């Protein structure tokens, strides 16, 4: 037999018991050829292109999933940043585009569509401004469209004007949607990547080909099981265990990406090596950190443990895939991770600790709920802090924060599904207002000037 029966049992055990799945197969579609000065023609172009390119996506992904026995949780679309495609158009047109994208996503049967995005790390065009100001209305009148704004980069510095603007967008979005669920679909980036398959930050970069298949792996449950099995090993041995497991998980991503790409005749882009947790019991990054010996995620030692986990996952994954890209780092969303929720409820982890953790992993303050009366300037300050970590360390950071109206510390916001439950976390009561209102752009750090 070409395979040891133990290998076969191991693989089946991974998918059946340890929640091994592919988190997402995302089809990136360029909309650059859809631009048109007439709004009706523009939306018609977008509609035509998306429906034609994405026609077989969902069915093909399902076929591959069944044939190879690997569950694939989500099928998604990513499009070119809409602020670029529709630059020059007004508020109403941007909302109309968001609705068109939403309809296309529904018709194609994809879970989410990312790319209602703007890249404004250095400055904003009129189109960027119109697009950012339309986000609250666009996301509150659609269900599948996700939006992102890149406000900083290592080469450009931090656009504080844009941060001030998006903080108000977040507050607006929270007011306009039930339990502020709209905020789950909006993320603010520093050093965003162009081939990220994960929602809400996915968009199809401007240097990407016409269409491309990107795959995001999952698998915290498998890593957790491997660590538990390793018992009282020292950290060097543990790193090795994680590496080996990450290799196997990534191989599944590589295989799924190749098979889907082959069947669709669309080039294979990248595998994103992010450990993405789900609210399912055992499929948690926080549980991994706790299995490594921490009493609760967030206690001293957490950042070091996370750094090791993140690094070992990358080392294992790099060998397993020919093209690694996207965000490629462990995710630490609060509401989507049962262990993380427990840590917040126990008071073991704070926004500040999460911020520290985001300097050693991908991507940042993700799915954190804060009291509804948190001022926009405080949210802007939180975004600026995250952006600073990303910019100076030459890495991606992000903020997906949910100021839930009317909710206070001790309560939580229920979203269900993969979005989970978000306990409200305390925020500093001291004001950042005067700093944020200065506006302008924080210059690029010297680390960005390495030519």
């Amino acid at each position, binding site marked *: *037999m*070409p*395979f*040891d*029966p133990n*290998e*076969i*049992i191991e*693989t*089946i055990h991974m998918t*059946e018991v340890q929640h091994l799945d592919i988190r997402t197969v995302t089809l990136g579609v360029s909309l650059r050829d859809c631009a048109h000065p007439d709004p009706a023609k523009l939306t018609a172009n977008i509609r035509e292109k998306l429906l034609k390119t994405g026609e077989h996506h969902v069915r093909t992904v399902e076929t591959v999933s*069944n*044939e*190879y*026995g*690997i569950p694939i949780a989500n099928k998604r679309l990513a499009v070119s940043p809409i602020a670029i495609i529709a630059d020059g158009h007004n508020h109403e047109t941007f909302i109309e585009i968001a609705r068109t994208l939403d309809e296309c996503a529904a018709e194609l049967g994809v879970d989410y569509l990312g790319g209602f995005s703007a890249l404004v790390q250095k400055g904003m065009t009129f189109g960027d401004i119109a697009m950012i100001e339309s986000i609250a209305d666009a996301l509150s009148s659609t269900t599948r469209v996700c939006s992102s704004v890149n406000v900083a980069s290592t080469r450009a510095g931090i656009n504080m004007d844009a941060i001030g603007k998006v903080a108000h967008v977040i507050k607006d979005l929270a007011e306009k949607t039930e339990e502020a669920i709209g905020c789950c679909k909006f993320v603010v980036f520093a050093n965003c990547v162009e081939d990220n398959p994960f929602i809400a930050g996915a968009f199809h970069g401007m240097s990407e080909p016409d269409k491309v298949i990107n795959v995001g792996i999952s698998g915290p449950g498998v890593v957790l099981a491997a660590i538990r099995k390793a018992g009282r090993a020292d950290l060097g041995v543990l790193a090795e265990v994680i590496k080996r497991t990450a290799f*196997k998980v990534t*191989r*599944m991503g*590589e*295989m799924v990406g*190749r*098979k889907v790409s*082959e069947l669709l*005749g669309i*080039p294979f882009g990248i595998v994103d090596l992010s450990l993405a947790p789900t609210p399912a019991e055992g499929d948690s990054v926080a549980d991994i950190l706790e299995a490594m010996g921490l009493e609760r995620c967030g206690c001293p030692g957490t950042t070091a443990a996370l750094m090791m986990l993140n690094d070992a996952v990358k080392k294992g994954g790099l*060998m397993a895939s020919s093209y690694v890209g996207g965000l490629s780092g462990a995710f630490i969303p609060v509401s989507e991770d049962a262990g993380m929720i427990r840590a917040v409820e126990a008071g073991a982890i704070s926004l500040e600790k999460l911020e520290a953790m985001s300097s050693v992993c991908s991507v940042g303050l993700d799915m954190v709920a804060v009291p509804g009366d948190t001022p926009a300037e405080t949210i802007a300050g939180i975004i600026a802090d995250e952006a600073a970590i990303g910019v100076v360390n030459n890495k991606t950071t992000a903020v997906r924060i949910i100021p839930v109206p009317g909710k206070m510390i001790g309560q939580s916001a229920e979203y269900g599904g993969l979005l989970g439950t978000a306990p409200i976390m305390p925020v500093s009561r001291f004001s950042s207002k005067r700093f944020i209102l200065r506006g302008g752009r924080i210059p690029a750090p010297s680390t960005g000037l390495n030519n």
Partner: protein
Amino acid sequence: MTLSDAEINRISEIVAGQSGVKLDARALRRVIDRVVDQLNAQRGNPEVEGATCEVSSEKSAKTGIDEARQAMLAKPSATGAETAASKNTKPGDPQPSAESSVGGLYEQIEKSDKTRVIIAAFGKDRPGVGAALTAVLAEHNCSIEDISQTLLQDFFSMIMIVNIDGCTVDFATLVERLKATETKLGMKVYVMHEDTFRYMHRI
């Protein structure tokens, strides 16, 4: 041994002359390289020396690469070109796309000629477990290539490698039929393409 571009073009012309099919030079080079690799492998392995090479004539396998080249020049359709090309570069597909040339390496490494699936069944031991599954496979013309069973106290596990090339129904239907035995037998049955295991456990 590497053929020059001129030699490749010459072979391409002969193939075109004899079969009326114009092969893409790049595709042809891949085919020839593959044949040469196989011959080299055979020459380096005394056990199979002299045996009939899978993709070329008996003579060329015995006498080495130069003869193989001559044989190919003289009688292209009877040697490597057609057989080895049949999978990756069909003679009727003279213009392989850029992607297929990138994918070529992966196909060589990771694909076998057969479509095989792994069928695993686990559960409490009871009579007729193996018979029920193999009956479904026989009914649909699938051949079992390898089988392994273990019995640990009352817990029974059975793993089969099955070639489904001749299967009379599509994959989804086959899985459905196999899964239908689950309730009857009180077992869990898993069916996965062989590549899942190849990717995960082999480099």
